[in-house]
């Protein structure tokens, strides 16, 4: 092939360009620390890089979730430990109280201390994590128990995603954690204090006819449309009359009607004779101690009686009228058992969280090194290549300089 000056210059320029391009690429890799800038330079690596980025982002978030779950559980655990101390103290008092016949004053002092413990227990149930009540289920904006120690929260689990698709329930509801304990306290208190006479019967939420439907051998819902109920409270006869749509009354509607009618017949205003307590509808005398009396006069065959299945309790209290029994102690034992089991469960979960946390950390390190392997430059290697490329470039410049210079013209003189 015939070679002209322009061919030589063109070839040299082409090679210089090529070498400069290589140099530029290596320089760019070194200064950015990355093997590529655009997906077209390495499409597969680029999409893997994107994947690593999003996985790292996930791991980062899951670590935060685990931390959050851990601190929530720590709060729960320490509240339960406090609760356990209160229960232990209450159990000791119960044993002390059951040990001997006590004077009324001693009993009252004991009752006062139990009352203190009870309110301490209620205060513990109001433990918060941030501004959220930890024992209210998902109803974290509401106190778990109201002043009557009725559970206000719900039974739902608060879950944290701690790994893709893996969730852990982190909360203990008030029902699981404290209801037994409060009930044990209430029993102890009423056993210590006695109280007024009352009648009570089980009644669920919803309307009366719904409650009837849910009962085994309950009355026909239609029979509840009109009914009457006769009571005697402290010697005063009371007639409760519901004339129509009785079946549609809800539990709280029914309580309101009872209170209205009893108040007017007892000659009092706005007193609470009837109330819902521990799932029972309860009607009581307002007189304290032995003088209180209440009885139901209505025939047991009446549908309303079948629905409610009233039980009567005598007025208790007064010296020697009521001894603390082993059932009081066993209630506390149960509550303490439950508390311990719950804490053990939390402990196990916290262990699992720790494991998860360290696994997430391992995963993060792995991902980071994979990502780095995928996109970062091997500095030593690149510097070597750069050096090589530099010498190639210099060689091409030098040879270019030689190629350019001589023409025949130089030798004509």
């Amino acid at each position, binding site marked *: *092939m*015939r070679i*002209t*000056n*322009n*061919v030589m210059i*063109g*070839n040299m320029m*082409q090679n210089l360009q090529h070498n400069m391009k290589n140099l530029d690429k290596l320089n760019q890799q070194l200064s950015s620390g990355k093997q590529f800038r*655009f*997906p*077209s330079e390495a*499409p*597969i690596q*680029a*999409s893997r890089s*994107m*994947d690593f*980025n*999003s996985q790292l*982002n*996930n791991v*980062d*978030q899951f670590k*935060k*979730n685990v931390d*959050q779950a851990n601190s929530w559980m720590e709060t729960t655990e320490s509240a339960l430990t406090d609760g356990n101390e209160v229960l232990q103290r209450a159990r000791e008092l119960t044993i002390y109280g059951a040990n001997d016949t006590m004077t009324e004053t001693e009993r009252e002092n004991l009752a006062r201390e139990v009352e203190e413990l009870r309110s301490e227990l209620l205060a513990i149930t109001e433990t918060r994590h*941030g501004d*959220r009540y930890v024992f*209210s*289920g*998902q*109803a*974290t*904006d*509401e106190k778990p128990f109201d002043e009557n120690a009725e559970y206000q*929260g*719900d*039974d*739902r*689990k*608060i*879950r*944290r*995603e701690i790994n*893709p*698709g893996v*969730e852990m329930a982190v909360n203990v509801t008030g*029902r699981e954690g404290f209801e037994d304990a409060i009930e044990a306290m209430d029993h102890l208190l009423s056993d210590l204090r006695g109280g007024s006479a009352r009648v009570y019967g089980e009644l*669920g*939420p*919803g309307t009366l006819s*719904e409650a009837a*439907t*849910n009962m085994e051998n309950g009355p026909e819902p239609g029979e509840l449309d009109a009914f009457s109920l006769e009571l005697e409270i402290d010697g005063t006869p009371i007639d409760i009359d519901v004339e129509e749509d009785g079946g549609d009354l809800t539990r709280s509607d029914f309580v309101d009607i009872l209170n209205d009618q009893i108040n007017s017949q007892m000659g009092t205003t706005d007193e609470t004779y009837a109330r819902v307590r521990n799932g029972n509808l309860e009607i009581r005398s307002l007189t304290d101690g032995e003088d209180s009396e209440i009885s139901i006069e209505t025939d047991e065959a009446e549908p309303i009686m079948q629905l409610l299945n009233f039980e009567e309790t005598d007025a208790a209290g007064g010296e020697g009228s009521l001894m603390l029994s082993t059932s009081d102690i066993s209630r506390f034992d149960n509550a303490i058992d439950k508390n311990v089991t719950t804490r053990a469960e939390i402990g196990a979960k916290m262990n699992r969280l720790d494991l998860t946390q360290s696994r997430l950390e391992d995963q993060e390190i792995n991902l980071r090194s994979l990502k780095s392997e995928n*996109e970062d430059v091997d500095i030593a290697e690149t510097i070597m290549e750069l050096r090589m490329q530099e010498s190639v470039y210099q060689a091409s410049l030098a040879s270019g300089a030689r190629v350019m210079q001589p*023409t*025949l*013209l130089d030798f*004509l003189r």
Partner: protein
Amino acid sequence: MNSFSSINTALSALQAQQRALDTTGHNIANSNTEGYSRQRAELSAARPYTSPGMNMPTTAGQVGQGVQVDNINRLRDDFIDGQIRRENQAGGYWDQVSEGLSRLELIYNEPSDNNLGNSLNEFWGSLQELSNDPQDSAIRSTVRQRAVTLTDTFHSLHDQMSEFKSSINNDVHSTVDEINSIIERIGDINKEIVHIKGSGQQPNDLLDTRDKLFDQLNEKVDARGSTDSRGNLDISIGGVKVVSGSSTNQLEIREDPDNNYEDTIHYSNIGKEIQVERGELKGLLEVRDEIIPAQLDELDTIAREMAEHFNRIHSTGYDLDGQQGGDFFELPDEDSGESPAQLIEVSQEIMDSTRKIAAGNFSDNPRVAEVNNPGTGDSPYRYRIRTERPDEDGNVNFTIAEMEGDEILNEFSGTAEIGESFELTEIEDAVGEEFSGVVDDVTITLKSRGEANITLDPSEGSGENATALARGLNEDQLEGLDNTSVNKYFEGVISSLGVDGQRAEQMVENSDLLKEQLNNRREAISGVSLDEELSNMIKFQQAYGAAANIITTQQQNMDTLLGLIR
């Protein structure tokens, strides 16, 4: 044969060597002119002279009459020219495609920290935070802000791509202008060439200029040329003549009636739209009409599928006011033909109040059972749903229990299809009026094995829907996205763009290499070699000197001869 004939011979040599020397000078002068082909004075011996005689020649043989310049030719290989032009067409096409693809890569800006992938990741993170702290107003604001960033990213990608499309449209205009100008000039040169050829001369330099223009035209578009006997170069593009002798048929641009930056190119004489296969123009049209619209479509698909899926999950949850979630994102109507990527917005309701973000779910485990409660609201009852492992046909045995506290009021077992929705009242009918807290219009969809508690009484601390929403972004596989998740699909878009870009770049490199080699071949034939020209110069100079010496010698001969008379 007279004594002066050798002077004439020498004179012809002087003239011929002079012409040759002139040509050499011309070659040296144009040694760096692009498109120039070296020229050569073709010399031949002049017709010999036979001495006249009465009967027979008395002198030996014919005597040469010197030299003559037949022609000044340019050295050119038409076959290589054809190859170079074809390679120019391919090179022009791939240049534009590669350029377009790398601009798109710049617009996507992946992988880096400031782009759609990252916006999606950050939005996902804020939803996870929301599931941890569903009632926290600061976190709710963060979720909203991240969502706005995401929609802004969609808008900005869409706008940048549209802008790019409009700039490519402008490039189409200027390319067509250039083509027209080349066509016009070739027409003019044809006229001159025919004129000069007619007068029996060889218009070498005009031919070079025309060839160069034709090379340039072939970078822009795939043009075919044929030379006729008179020296005209006729050119056709897409099978229609655009240069025929000195008359030309220009291309004209018609504005896109839809204002979509897709202006079309027509032949001005017949009005037909042109068809091009290669060249810059083809590359530009492909970037404008196929590559950019395909990316805009991908963006629209991602925006629409992501937003619709997100809205669907959002509507299964409830907000801080206990209301069922509304639309989180607003999209243009599917029939309107408007671009979702351009118009996607966070809904006004959520912009007005972050309380409207539906982080809560009626089911505490939406992966097992999803509840859709159109706001019929509070029932104190709780349902516990337990499902077993689905069988091969996707049917699942389940029990659904109505609870109060931890007490089971009623229980019902049945079988349902995975993903099938049924109303709670259907269960009530099935158990025969035993469920007590049933509310109309509450539908339940079973999803997988496990246990879920369902309350219809919303509470603020519920963050399950936020978790479900987060999953919607990077786990749920969407049918409209080829059964991949949103972020995987996006990764796919970027990587296939990268693969296309890589291929285009390689094609550009290949074509550059080929062009370089072909150019070297052309240069080997047509290029000026200074060494060669200098050698020729010396050769012609020596011959000129020698010829001059002949005249001197002849003169001396004459002097000698004339001296005899004196």
